[in-house]
């Protein structure tokens, strides 16, 4: 073997070794790490298992899910005095104020979230990164409305029609969508965060005998004919449509210039987490086009990722039931929970609308 050949062989071996080390370092980035994520079960978890989990496992780690509503995750946090049984958590906009009081979240290093460029700057900050939002709508059975001689509802008050008695389902205040939609009803009735009485009066007038706790209940109730209309996020309306129910959605008129209601989801990293790098990685993956699109189609939430939004427009059912125009979306009502006295809202609800 001449000198040139020897030098070439040595160089090739050296390059190979470096490449092998580099590959194994990347592949083993999260060796032995078990990331625990608090999220919903069903399609929510399934989407993560399909798209995010395999990528994390390829890096040597494992993801476990602690399923339940954000309210139950928060209750677990409080019970554990901030020692969370999870690293990352789905947080609802209505909970942001509660988290501010208990200081259980740690700052997010946005430099570790390069995919934040896929979303709008107001959708992330040093504590939270936005994950999705929902369009809260009135979903109604077009055939039943025709049979009853009712025109399409325009706002919540239209659900008080005598023909719809016992046939309307609203979100329970105890559900993830409860506070947001109650807020929508309050504003539509002429009230505001402090003056909730008009909303309670309107709710009483609607006289829904069913308050749902999980959006899936409305899908079943549409199928069994138990309800003809529901206040629910457009994704559940889409799921009912995909299951064959003849439903359509309406973004309710709430006040002049405001049509529709948005509920926002965020991601936060627990202060007690020891898997901070993995938690950042997870949040970054959440913002990829693939995941955001899959999530939107299967779970019915609206993506924040701009490319995923464009892709979603090609889905006929979503395009029919959801507002796709960015200008109109920006005009939807977003409840300012900093002004909301949650205890007063829940007390008012309990005393007016339950146990009677």
């Amino acid at each position, binding site marked *: 073997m001449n000198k040139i050949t020897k030098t070439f062989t040595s160089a090739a071996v050296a390059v190979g070794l470096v490449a092998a080390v580099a590959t194994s370092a990347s592949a083993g980035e999260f060796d032995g790490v078990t990331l625990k994520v608090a999220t919903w079960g069903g399609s929510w978890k399934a989407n993560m298992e399909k798209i995010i989990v395999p990528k994390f496992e390829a890096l040597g780690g494992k993801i476990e899910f602690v399923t339940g509503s954000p309210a139950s995750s928060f209750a677990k946090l409080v019970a554990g005095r901030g020692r969370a049984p999870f690293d990352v958590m789905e947080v609802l906009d209505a909970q942001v104020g509660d988290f501010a009081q208990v200081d259980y979240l740690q700052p997010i290093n946005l430099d570790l979230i390069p995919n934040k460029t896929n979303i709008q700057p107001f959708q992330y900050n040093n504590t939270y990164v936005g994950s999705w939002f929902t369009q809260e709508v009135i979903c109604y059975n077009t055939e039943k409305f025709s049979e009853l001689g009712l025109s399409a509802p325009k706002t919540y008050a239209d659900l008080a029609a005598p023909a719809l008695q016992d046939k309307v389902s609203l979100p*329970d205040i105890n559900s993830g969508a409860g506070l947001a939609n109650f807020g929508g009803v309050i504003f539509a009735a002429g009230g505001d965060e402090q003056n909730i009485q008009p909303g309670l009066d309107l709710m009483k007038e609607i006289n829904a*005998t069913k308050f749902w706790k999980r959006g899936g209940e409305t899908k079943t*109730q549409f199928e*069994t*004919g138990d309800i003809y209309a529901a206040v629910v996020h457009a994704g559940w309306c889409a799921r009912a449509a995909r299951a064959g129910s003849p439903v359509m959605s309406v973004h309710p008129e709430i006040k002049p210039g405001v049509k529709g209601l948005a509920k926002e989801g965020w991601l936060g990293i627990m202060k007690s987490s020891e898997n901070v790098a993995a938690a950042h990685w997870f949040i970054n993956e959440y913002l990829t086009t693939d995941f955001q699109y899959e999530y939107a189609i299967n779970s019915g939430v609206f993506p924040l990722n701009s490319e995923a939004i464009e892709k979603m427009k090609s889905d006929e059912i979503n395009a029919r039931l959801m507002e796709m125009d960015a200008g109109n979306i920006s005009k939807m009502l977003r409840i300012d929970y900093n002004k909301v006295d949650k205890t007063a809202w*829940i007390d008012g609800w309990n005393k007016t*609308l339950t*146990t009677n």
Partner: protein
Amino acid sequence: MENRWIAYLIPPLIVTLLLVAGSQFVFIQNSFYQDLGLGRTGTDLTLVNYLNFFTDSFYLKTFWITIKVSALASLFTLFLGFPIAYVIARMKSRLAMLLLAGIVVSTFVTIVIKVFGLIIIFSADGVLNTTLMDLGLIDRAYSIIGTQEGIVVGLMHFTIGFSVLLLYSVVVTVPPSLEYAAQIHGASRWRVYQRVIIPLCTPGFVVGGLMIFNMCMGAFTSAALLGGGRVLTLPVLVQRTVMMEVKYSTAASIAFVLLVSVILINLISLIAIRRLRSARLVIA
């Protein structure tokens, strides 16, 4: 000998005290501190949570509804369960064992599945509503969700299997020879029930009724699913207070009121029955 057996009971007693009574004690202790929300409590001992409960019509109404639906469900379950238990107890074939096994197996089915079955049966397009509408008995589908009647049906569904097993064990202690003797002396079948079977089974009815009542008072799933967020019972309210409002002290006080009221209702019932029986013996 007896003392040796008692010694075996001490370890499970300690475990029970630590796991059940210990955690209950911590929870109940919380109820005597002011609720500051988000799991936080004041530092001074106070009865303010209990005062809130007993002065707020919402809590009192919820308390009353819990007792009402539990009492009605217990009563109807006994009425439904007793004939079934009686027929099975008097069967001489192997079918009796098969039926009992069926009841036992049905108790393995989770309550959520059972309640969803009820919801399907009672749904607008369900068997019951379509049959009643086809017969012209109702002109609009009746829904049990969000009604007290619905919760009573759910609680009955939850406890009926248990009640049949319990009443079966009571009926088998009544010798059939007593029924034959009464019939030989000319008593009608109804008279035999009235004067022989029911009096002899009364202690079983009382104990069984109280056990079913206790189960109903603490039942969460049936009440939560069939109450539809509209009708609340105390267990549902405890869950809502913990999960939604994260008010542990308030929830603890509601839970303690529920616990004490169940104990009191049981004690009062047993004392009343004992006095009634003593009075009957004196008259006799």
